[in-house]
Each structure stands twice: as C-alpha cells, then as structure tokens.
C-alpha cells in the first residue's frame, strides 16, 4: 500500500436534478494526489453526471468542487483554465474527426496552452508513445479501432499535464476484445502515480486498480471502501451483490 499525497480535489455536497429526477444527492469526497477512485453501481445512478459536474460540463444545482484551493464551481471564465488541469476521457472517445491522432493531441497544446509548434509536436509524440500508438500518429479517427481511438483520447487528455484524470466509462463502447488494451494503459497511469476518478463497469479492473471503490445507488454513495474491505467486510453487502450480478452477467456461458 503506497502512501498518497495531499488532498488535491474536494467535492462538497454536490446535488443535481434533471427536471424532477434527482441524479445526485449531496455527494462529498476528497481525492489525494496519486489516488485512484473507482465509481461503480447500476446504470442511471449519476456516476457520469458526477464526473461531469466536477469539471462543470454539467453545472450542479448545489455543492462545491475545489481543485487544490481553487473553487471550480462558480469559477466564471476561469473555468477554462481549471478544466485544462482535469483531463477527461469519454465513453465515445469524442476525437476530432478532421484531425489525425497527432493533431488531436496537439490542438489544445497549440490553441489553449499556446505552445510552440515544435514543442507541441514533441509532446504529442511523447504522449502517443505512452499509450503505444506512435505508429498511428498520422491516422484519422475513422481509421483507428475503438481501442486505439480511446488510447488517443487518453493521450490527448494527458498532454495537458492534468492534476487529475476523469474517466467516464472508458471501455463501455468497446468490443470486449478491445477493452484490455485501454485498461492496461489506465493501469500504467495508476502505477505512474496519476490521480484518477474512474466510472467503470469492469469489476475486475476496478478491484485491481482502485485505492477506493465507491458504490453509487440512487444518486448517493451507498458504500465505500478499499477493494479488500469490499470483498471481505460484511458491511458491504450491497456492493458485493452488485458485483456478483455484473460478473454473472459478463461471464460467458460454460466459463467458470
């Protein structure tokens, strides 16, 4: 068990409703440097909304988010600067279709960070190598497999040197045989000490990579603890039942 650093992200009492549907109810937690937190739970319990509220892609109804000592909620135009420090990876990759893999990584370096062209190119090359795709640098998104596209989108987020990475179901849109390569990249980031919040349905992955697992139900954190606690402690009954259901569901017939 490695020790984790200072608190870098604080979420205090986040709530969000869409019309009459309350998707987040008073969510609070803190994230320390180098920590990986995995959010699991049934669909529609607000996990993705929670991530989007953290970088204000969705504006919460109440509650506050702090990155170090800076408030992310109610940040006004400063939000653009704060978002640079919170990398986000989406379920559907959301690569820019008109740009090659390299240019996808470069564009925010050039236009947001105002880096020199040569420095941006070098940085993009480095990040693509990090996700194992330097040979795909000149391919367009449509020429990449889903797994490759998702790795490019991870490189794109990493290039901004974020303080924290937000993964919104990074493998849910992938064919099963392509999830492995993406999960390996994320595990590598965890080993390198990247701070990460991950919404996932991959239970084995969550148990192996997370420092803490947060089980969400009906817009609340129902149970939370380390993977060891979740698997052994009798207090985590709901989480275990949920994991059991997912595992039965994803296991192929005849297996195990």
């Amino acid at each position, binding site marked *: 068990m490695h020790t984790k650093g200072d608190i870098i992200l604080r979420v205090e009492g986040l709530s969000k409703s869409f019309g009459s549907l309350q998707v987040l109810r008073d969510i609070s937690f803190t994230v320390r440097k180098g920590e990986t937190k995995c959010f699991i739970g049934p669909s529609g319990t607000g996990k993705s909304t929670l991530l989007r509220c953290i*970088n204000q*892609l969705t504006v919460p109804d109440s509650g506050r988010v702090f990155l170090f000592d800076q408030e992310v909620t109610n940040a006004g*135009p400063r939000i*653009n*600067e*704060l*978002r*640079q420090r*919170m*990398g*986000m990876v*989406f379920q*559907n*990759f*959301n*690569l*820019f*279709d*008109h740009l090659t893999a390299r240019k996808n990584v470069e*564009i*925010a370096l050039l*236009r*947001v960070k105002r880096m020199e062209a040569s420095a941006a190119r070098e940085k993009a090359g480095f990040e693509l190598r990090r996700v194992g795709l330097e040979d795909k640098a000149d391919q*367009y998104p*449509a*020429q990449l497999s889903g797994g490759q596209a998702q790795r490019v*989108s991870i490189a*794109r*987020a990493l290039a*901004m040197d974020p303080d924290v990475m937000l993964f919104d179901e990074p493998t849910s849109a992938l064919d099963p045989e392509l999830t492995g390569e993406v999960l390996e990249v994320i595990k590598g980031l965890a080993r390198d000490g990247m701070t990460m919040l991950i919404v996932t349905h991959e239970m084995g992955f969550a148990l192996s990579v997370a420092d803490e697992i947060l089980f969400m139900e009906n817009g609340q954190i129902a149970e939370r603890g380390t993977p060891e606690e979740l698997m052994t402690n009798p207090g985590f009954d709901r989480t275990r039942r949920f994991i059991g259901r997912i595992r039965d569901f994803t296991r192929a017939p005849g297996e195990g």
Partner: protein
Amino acid sequence: MDQATFIFDILIPNLGEGFLVTLALIALSAPCGLLVGMGVAAGRVYGTRPLRILAKGYVVFFKGCPLLLLLFILYFGLPSLGLPLGAFLSAVLGFIFCNSAYNSEFIRGAIHSIKEGQFTAAQALGMSRGQVIRYIIMPQAVRKAFPGIMNEFIYLIKFSSLAYMITVIELTGAGKMIATKYFMFTETFFILGLVYLVLVSVTTVAAHFIEKKYRIIAQ
C-alpha cells in the same frame, strides 16, 4: 468586318478590363461571403437568443430579397440615406449579403451533423466556446458544407454580371458596350458565355481537387 476579325482584334482585346473587374468582384465577395456565412451560422446555432434571432432575420431577409433589387437598394437607395457607397462597393456588398445568407444555411446544417461529444471534449481540454467553434466545429462544418458552398460560388460567378445593372463595367457590361458600338450582339454574347463557362469549369475542377484533399475521412 468579318466575325473573326471582330472577335480576335476588337472584342477580346477590349474585354480584358471588364474581365478583371469581374474577377475582382468575385475575389472580394466569395471569401467575405464564406466568412460572414460562418459567423451567421455560428450565431444561429450557438448564439444567445437575441443573436440567434438577428442571424435568422439576416438569412430570411437576404435569401428573400431578389439580388437585383438588393443591388438597386444599395446603389440607388442608400445615397438618399446619406450613405453613398459607389457602384463597385454596392455590388460587392450585395454579393456578400446574398452569398453569405445561403452559405450560412449549408454551414448550419453541417454543424448539426457534427456529434456533440466533440464540442464537450474540446471544452474539457480548456477551450472557450469561441475556440471550440473556431478550431473544432468550423473546420469540419465548412468541409461538410463544401459542395453547397461551391455551388454558391458558381452562382456568384454568374450573378456577378448583375453588377452591370448598377453601372459597374465588368465583363458583361464591357461586352454589351462593344456589341452596341459594332452591332455584333450574337458574336459578343456567345464569347461572353464561353468566358463564363470557362470560369465555372475551372472552379468546378478546382473544387473537386480541394474537396478530395480536405475530405474528412469517414468510417
């Protein structure tokens, strides 16, 4: 004077200046028409409510107004409001209004075909809305709208002859004057038609290559 002498010794040498005026009308109107079209389209899709209404009004007005009438308003009407623009500028402005109104419609449609996730992803990287529109949305929208934009460009080449109606001596105007002087209407208008045909053909071929080069590679 036989027809060949008229065409090669009189008509063609004297069309040069008018031809250049036609090129100038197009070269000024087309890029501005595209830029304004992008702005109007962005205003309609991403603008605040007043801006959206303004942009829509722009399109409705300039799409609905016959181009010749628009040129008359600009050239004959504005001076009485204390705004004399001159013939050439009136023509260029009229072409820009008309061209941009149509272009904005093609671009607006193209914007709607771009998956919303790209906008979100660009924002998550720290881009402002303006940067997202400029660097992510517009480059794709213009590529997708390109066939329509090129159609408008070709219309513009042909409509540029309407500038003659407000005294701009462009290609058609220059030809008309020579034809009247030498009473050689058929020969003159035939040659003029050929020149426009060549301009349109060159544009069509160039558009084909540009479209191929900048095509967004699709799944």
